[in-house]
């Protein structure tokens, strides 16, 4: 029941805002997202830590086609639900002084997006999952289309068609599995698992690629990333936060829940290619990030690099890698939010995001500089920051998987330090330029947003155990499924 409420509550508020267009829509949206967050905390306190799906609800939706409204939360879902509900109030609060603060549509779309995201992370029915997956695309498309920057219509349409192409492939793959389910066909996840495993290796390979392309485009990993830098740059900052903070995690979640247990042979056969692509992406995106002039674009490329490490670790299929990927998703969400927000603050105050034309921000804005420093240290995975835990686990798993791949993946930290610190040095240190002489430091609202984020970066970095515990049992069960199957076929 509580899961259903988590999904329905944002829709109700969103529609209310959309139809009645109240003057205080931003406050309503913030309140609604806080209520949602508190609800997700309630879920955590009731969560028993076992691997089984809890808080479930299963009612027939389209009975004649074997489609059920089946939602539940287990440890893996819980982490991502927590990320969504936790980040959403920050995203809404960060828009309070921005140009979109008086637009009810904007907040209606954000809340609609939250509904779809929670739906994706809790759905246990293939069809339902697909519907939520697609529904997440509509609000973000309109957020980018209406409030985006230069060339927005061309770039957002490319983004939409690109991701839709992946989604349709996923739909075809799910349909193929659906028609392999015995008797009265069903989209239930267990039935699809069984159907996927009954296939031969070649067929599993096909289904693997159908599903993996959808997830790879969403993350995005090399070479399916070409929509990402443009879209991140052109999107309004809240849109970028939603995209990189939460939405790309849909791809990882898809791999964990819908790919690995579904077609284990496909994963065994093709997993290496996927890991290789991810690692190539790390090096490629990091190298490009070094040359970026636009700070927002730099963060976008950095995001591709980090995503590459996460997907590589995930596909090594050992517990450390999976746990690392999960905690890194949380950490990446928080850090991406912080970086994009600071980037926005700087660009609003100086009217530029070009690194070369900034400089000496430190003199007038020491707090801003410190916060950015912390966020950047988190990004380059300094110990005691949240980024370290995840990257350590991920690299650990990569080294266990293959030494060369591990070593290449390790470049992410070195190259990350290069592009992050270089940008930091140019923007924050040195002499003031004409654009930065009169910059003011963080103000009240910005502090309210960024201070808790800073605290979170350290808390997760120092004591990640509670988060790791949430997903541990679920990840263990999932891998057991996979390992058992692989052993049996061997």
């Amino acid at each position, binding site marked *: 029941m509580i899961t259903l409420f988590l999904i329905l509550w944002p829709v109700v508020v969103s529609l209310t805002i959309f139809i009645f267009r109240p003057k205080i829509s931003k406050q309503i949206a913030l309140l609604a997202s806080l209520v949602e967050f508190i609800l997700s905390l309630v879920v955590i306190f009731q969560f028993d830590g076992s691997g089984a799906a809890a808080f479930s609800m299963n009612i027939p*939706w*389209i*009975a*004649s*086609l074997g489609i059920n409204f089946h939602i539940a939360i287990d440890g893996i879902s819980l982490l991502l639900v927590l990320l969504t509900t936790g980040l959403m109030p920050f995203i809404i609060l960060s828009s309070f002084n921005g140009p979109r603060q008086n637009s009810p549509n904007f907040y209606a779309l954000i809340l609609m997006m939250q509904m779809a995201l929670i739906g994706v992370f809790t759905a246990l029915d293939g069809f339902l999952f*697909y*519907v939520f997956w*697609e*529904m997440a*695309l*509509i609000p973000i498309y*309109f957020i980018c*289309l*209406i409030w985006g920057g230069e060339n927005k*219509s061309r770039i957002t*349409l490319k983004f*939409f*068609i690109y991701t*839709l*192409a992946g989604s*349709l*492939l996923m*739909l*075809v793959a799910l*349909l*193929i599995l*659906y*028609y392999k389910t015995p008797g009265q066909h069903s989209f239930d996840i267990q039935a699809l698992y069984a159907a996927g495993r009954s296939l031969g290796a070649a067929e599993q390979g096909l289904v693997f690629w159908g599903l993996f392309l959808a997830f790879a485009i969403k993350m995005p990993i090399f070479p399916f990333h070409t929509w990402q830098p443009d879209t991140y740059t052109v999107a309004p900052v809240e849109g970028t936060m939603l995209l990189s903070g939460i939405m790309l995690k849909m791809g990882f979640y898809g791999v964990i829940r819908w790919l690995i247990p579904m077609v284990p042979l496909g994963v065994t056969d093709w997993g290496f290619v996927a890991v290789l692509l991810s690692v190539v992406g790390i090096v490629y995106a990091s190298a490009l990030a070094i040359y970026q002039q636009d700070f927002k674009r730099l963060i976008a490329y950095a995001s591709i690099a980090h995503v590459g490490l996460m997907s590589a670790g995930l596909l090594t299929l050992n517990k450390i890698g999976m746990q690392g990927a999960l905690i890194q998703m949380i950490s990446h969400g928080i850090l991406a939010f912080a970086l994009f927000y600071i980037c926005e603050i700087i660009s609003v105050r100086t009217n530029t995001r070009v690194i070369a034309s900034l400089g000496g921000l430190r003199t007038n804005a020491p707090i801003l500089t410190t916060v950015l420093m912390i966020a950047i240290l988190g990004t380059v995975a300094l110990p005691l920051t949240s980024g370290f835990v995840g990257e350590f686990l991920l690299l650990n798993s990569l080294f266990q998987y293959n030494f060369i791949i591990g070593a290449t993946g390790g470049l992410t930290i070195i190259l990350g330090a290069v592009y992050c610190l270089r940008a930091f040095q140019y923007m924050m240190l040195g002499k003031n330029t004409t654009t930065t002489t009169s910059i003011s430091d963080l103000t009240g609202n910005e502090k309210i947003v960024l201070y808790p984020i800073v605290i979170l970066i350290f808390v997760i970095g120092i004591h990640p155990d509670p988060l790791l515990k949430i997903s541990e049992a679920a990840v263990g069960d999932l891998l057991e499924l996979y390992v058992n199957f692989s052993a049996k076929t061997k």
Partner: protein
Amino acid sequence: MNALLIVCGLGFISLVAEIINLKKGLHIAIVLGLVVAVAAVIGDWNTSATFFNNMLIFDPFSVAFTCLIIVVGIFWFCLTSPFFIGESHQTDRTALIIFTMVGGIMMVSFHNMAILFLGIEILSISLYVLAGSHKESFFSNEAAFKYFIMGSFATGFLLMGIALVYGATGSFDTSEITMHIEGHKAGLPGFFYVGILLMLVGLAFKISVVPFHFWAPDVYAGSPTMITAFMSTVVKIAAVGAFYKIFGLCFFSVQMSVLPIIQGIIILTLLVANIIAVYQNNVKRMLAYSSIAHVGYMLLGFISGSVKFEGILFFYLASYATTSLIAFGILYAIENAKGSTSIDAVKGLYNQNPFAATCMTIALLSLAGIPPFAGFFSKYLIFGSAIEADHIMLVIVAVVTSLVGVYYYFKPIIYMFSPAQASDKLYLSAVQKAFLGMLTAAALLLGLLPEWIITILS
């Protein structure tokens, strides 16, 4: 059956309305009459009966399609009141529309080739006149003339086909034809297949699939906008219904002989219609090509031969008609306000009328097949049945063309949400608003709760 009689009666009422000076209340009277007809259809629900010596059959399929035709007709009448009020020839136009619906109902409930032909002719001849009902417009005249010539040509093919089939089987009655085919499978003469082929060509003209589509874009773009809406909803339902009754039911056992041709038609239709639609700068013309493309998807479901196909087709047509009525209804209002249906006319629509822009956006998203709207579900059902029948290649073509579809359906959306040049507003009457709202709600509800529509025919 009663519904058909009621609708016929309404046609005569509107013809004599001019003489007995009933013009003022005619529009409302027609709508009320159609509502009564819907009630009559619902009275026949789940019954099956033949009439006039097996000329007409009202089985669940016919009843459901009749109901759809009349309900869409009601919505059409409510959205188009300006088309009738304040213009000349109000009664003639009303009568022609009603007779088109009569023809449509006959096309989905025939049990005899003669009635099929009669239905098609009643429908087409009324439409030829309607297409030219903007007498001063050059394009409207062109549309009418083109439609007439191409249409008569197609009818000729159809008639020749019916004659050849009659020659081979000795009957016009569809169930007797089916029985004859079953009984003499090996001994059917060659000209029987020629007859089937000719009928396929004739009907392909009517449902406007590539390569028999050349009339469609010009006719759709030239006709008055609401007549175009009528063609792409009511007429499409009737034509596709007739196509299914002939090739899905009557010629079921020799279906294999035309399947390769239909497969070719599907691939051509999906590719050509979708690709040409990309290059249109007129929303009306774009919707014309999109309407051709949607028939391609319907045929893809047809050749997959799913046992649930009747329900799927019904759902597809219902959702397509719903969304296409919204799009055309709003386009009609835009045309009235700005005198054009080009893509520039929709620019800034969101600032001019947020309600219209929201409805139009939902309609276009649904046409593009984005969940949770009705159009997604209809496409899903088609893809599903095609995958079940192992037509993976065709599904991949359909997936690619769906992506192309997103490109051109999103073009008006992008224009609608871009800032407007002038501050001219777009006004919708309260009736238009109410019915557009209802249709939009239907587009959403059909997508969220498709179960009851799909199972209506099983």
